């Protein structure tokens, strides 16, 4: 039998229907590999018993011809989606022992479609990070190796680093992720995966541990564009429990997927190219060539607010986070360090159970919301955010989609982490503007650098243009033939 962990979701789903193997076989293959690859530290909590139980039920449904879209397919779930009866930590000591009594809407949608949960994947603490090195449970390691320095442990990106490393290392067939400033797309680019951040409100946030509520969006990490379409179709959908969720039917992205981009107007924004290094420029040129050959039309455009997106993000996201994380106070369900007084308990609990990066962002957020600073920081940032959104609106009057690199470069070593936070934050420079405007964007693996490490291209579209993005990404996927670069 071929190695079942090499299959894509769509391949495996067809094979299950044909009874080439059972859902239990498939789950066992992944569980075995998870045992072998624990050094990558991609799972915070493995759930083999539940996975096998679910796989058995999947086999029963498959035998009756009642299989769902994801029936029997083994998935990793980012550890900020609350899973009923399964520990959910959000990568923090604060929730080290938190077992939610409820299931997030997104993970419930996956379960209803027959998905099998292998476990909860590692992540930057409360999704704050770009390298999965802020996790209380230790860094996740990318399965990719630099040709120049094969001993070097590489970061999988973040904050959905565990999910990306898991899919990339074939420890899950696909995984859920979340994107506040690039946390789906940047790890996708670092690990040679497809990652789509949908339009804000397409997926319900109910049951997701919040980082920055006005920016957080769930999305999938997959090997292929088709898999991304399938996952997104299941994850998305109106939820009356989330007041910011979009109403309307979710399109059948997977069924409608095609590689027709004839006449598609693709914008190349000069602000995204200016500081690009040579390998980045070469990659973008390849993207331009592939899309042009497929019949798309390139247009040079300008998004003048681009340089302001990152500083604006680092005002607004911490502001919301400082408030969202106030509930972790040691009083009810979170970890607690006792104190002599209530204030003492708060201070000890929060100093001990939040990591450095989380504390830094809570402090920043508290500062920008404080009396006397609110107008200069928070209010101004809100105004800039509107300008960024208007800038994209204006661009989409002229073009259908934008093509940009996903990240400034490829993955770096776990030990090469930048010493100052700002340099780390720059990882998100191409991804953050999209969140500010609530737009959908997809990262698709397009090639490798001179070390053989993956690089991704990003397509950005107007609100609810997911189908268009998936179709255009298919063109790049086919032209790039990224499978040729796989190391595992």
């Amino acid at each position, binding site marked *: 039998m071929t190695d079942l962990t090499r299959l894509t979701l769509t391949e495996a789903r067809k094979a299950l229907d044909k009874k080439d193997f059972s859902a239990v076989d498939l789950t066992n293959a992944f569980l075995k590999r998870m045992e072998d690859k624990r050094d990558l530290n991609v799972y915070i909590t493995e759930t083999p018993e539940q996975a096998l139980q679910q796989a058995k039920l999947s086999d029963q449904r498959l035998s009756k011809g009642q299989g769902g879209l994801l029936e029997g397919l083994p998935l990793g779930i980012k550890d900020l989606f609350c899973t009923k009866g399964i520990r959910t930590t959000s990568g923090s000591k604060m929730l080290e022992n938190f077992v*939610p009594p409820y299931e997030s809407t997104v993970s419930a949608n996956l379960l209803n479609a027959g998905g099998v949960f292998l476990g909860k994947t590692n992540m930057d603490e409360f999704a704050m990070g770009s390298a999965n090195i802020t996790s209380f449970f230790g860094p996740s390691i990318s399965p990719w190796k630099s040709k120049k320095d094969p001993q070097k442990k590489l970061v999988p990106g973040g904050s959905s680093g565990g999910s990306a490393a898991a899919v990339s290392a074939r420890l899950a067939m696909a995984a859920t992720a979340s994107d506040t400033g690039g946390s789906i797309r940047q790890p996708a680019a670092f690990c040679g995966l497809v990652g789509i951040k949908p339009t804000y409100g397409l997926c319900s946030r109910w049951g997701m541990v919040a980082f920055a509520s006005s920016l957080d969006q769930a999305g999938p990490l997959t090997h292929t564009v088709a898999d991304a379409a399938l996952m997104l179709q299941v994850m998305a959908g109106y939820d009356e429990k*989330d007041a910011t969720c979009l109403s309307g039917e979710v399109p059948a992205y997977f069924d409608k997927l095609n590689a027709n981009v004839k006449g598609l107007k693709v914008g190349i924004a000069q602000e995204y190219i200016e500081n690009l290094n040579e390998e980045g420029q070469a990659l973008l040129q390849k993207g331009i060539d592939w899309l042009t050959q497929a019949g798309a039309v390139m247009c040079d455009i300008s998004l003048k607010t681009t340089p302001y997106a990152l500083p604006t993000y680092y005002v607004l996201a911490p502001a*919301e986070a400082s408030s969202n994380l106030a509930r972790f106070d040691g*009083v*009810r369900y979170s970890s607690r360090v006792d104190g002599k007084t*209530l204030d003492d308990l708060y201070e000890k609990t929060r100093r001990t159970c939040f990591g450095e990066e989380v504390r830094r962002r809570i402090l920043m957020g508290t500062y920008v919301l404080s009396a006397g600073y*609110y107008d200069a920081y928070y209010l101004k940032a809100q105004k800039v955010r509107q300008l960024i959104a208007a800038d994209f609106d204006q661009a989409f009057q002229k073009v259908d989609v934008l093509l940009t690199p996903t990240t400034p470069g490829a993955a770096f070593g776990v030990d090469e982490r930048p010493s100052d936070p700002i340099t780390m934050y720059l990882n998100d420079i191409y991804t953050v503007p999209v969140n500010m405007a609530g737009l959908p964007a997809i990262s698709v693996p397009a090639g490798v650098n001179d070390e053989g490490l993956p690089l991704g291209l990003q397509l950005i579209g107007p609100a609810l243009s997911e189908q268009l993005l998936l179709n255009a990404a298919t063109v790049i996927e086919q032209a790039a033939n990224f499978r040729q670069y796989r190391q595992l």
Partner: protein
Amino acid sequence: MLENENLVQGRTGKWEVVIGLEVHAQVNSKAKLFSGSSTDFGSDPNTQVSFLDAGMPGMLPVINKVCVDQAIKTGLGFHGHINEISIFDRKNYFYADLPAGYQISQFHYPIVTGGYIDIEVDGKPTKRIAITRLHIEQDAGKSIHDLHPEFSYIDLNRAGMALMEIVSEPEMRSPAEATAYVKKLRSLLRYLGTCDGNMEQGSLRVDANISLRRLGEPLGTRAEIKNVNSIRFLGQALDYEIYRQLEILEDGGAVIQETRLFDPVKGETRSMRGKENAHDYRYFPDPDLKPLVVTQERIEAIRTTMTELPDAKRNRFQVDYGLSDYDATVLVAEKEIADYYETVIKAAKSQDVKQAAKLCANWLISEVFAAMNRESLLIHQLPFQAHHLAELIDLIIDGTISGKIAKDVFAKMWTTAKSPTELVADLGLQQISDTSVIEAVIDQVLAENPDKVTDYKAGKVQLFGFFVGLVMKVMKGKANPGLVNDILKNKL
């Protein structure tokens, strides 16, 4: 000139009292503001708590439309402007009974702006108090510190309940005006059915801002008295605070801007926290909630559900029933009483509506209210039926019984279920209006007291009452008092 009546006299001169009130009114609604949890009062601790109310990770608020409708109705009730767009903000602070670490409120853009309430104090002309705003917010849970020497207990049943915070302009000039304002607002809320106004249960709580100044000068530094839960305590707290601030200012000192608590046992206010410890609430728009949009159609639909409000009802009572301003004001203060009053009038058979209405008002305000107070009963708990009270009034008007006998019948109505007509018949209390019977008794009384008759005729006219008393005594109080007076006058 009017305002000068309220000035406070100090050693160094007169001071003007300036009071503004923030009233927190719990919205009448079966479910909380953002969760489906029940709002029943008196349930076991922590039994009405959803995952949202407990601040669990990933839980999101969804607005309860009923609470919004109630806020709109309240705003319409005090002639406020309903804003088509309002915004929910987070008010951030840490406390053990605030599970999320923030309270969802409305800061910059409340749902209602402007409006007013007319108040009356001691028969003085109506004074109009402007309302700044009404906003919707969540209540916090309850901390209980006195159950255990070392531990505090938290009850989250109240956490997340909907409150309307109604903020007045600083336009009240005396504790009497402040208490009149709260009474009037409470009456309005109860008429509207948007808050039960139950202050003992905490459904209505008042924060009072108070300062003193020399007439014509800018506002002085204010103190805020938090969480006053009775109208009587509000008056006492303000009285104390005026005295306290007056002492400071007269001595040339400065009032500190601070939050104070009223201690009803000692009858004084105490500093809770000063400005230096004031919270920085870091308000910002709640990203979990979209701006609250209410359409004109929705506002108009709510307007059509509004019942007659106290001011309109009082005017109607004066015009239709010829009631005095005082009687009308007393009867409309509680909707249940006003409704009861009209039920009785409608059941009365007397042709002269105004006579019946006036008599009924007197009876309610004096006899019925006194009995209710004595027995600690509410109007809907009276032991007799409303139409029996109407019958009693009819019996007085048609001369069957006197007002004095009616009081005896009324007393019997509390203990038996019989109608006044039955009681009068059973007890033989019919008024005697037969002039020949009355004349005979008068003749007998005059014959038995010849010396007093002589005195009376000599000018001792106050003896008239003495003769009436004797006649009534002989006739066991059943004589028609008008006839007794007339006949006695003639005979003497």
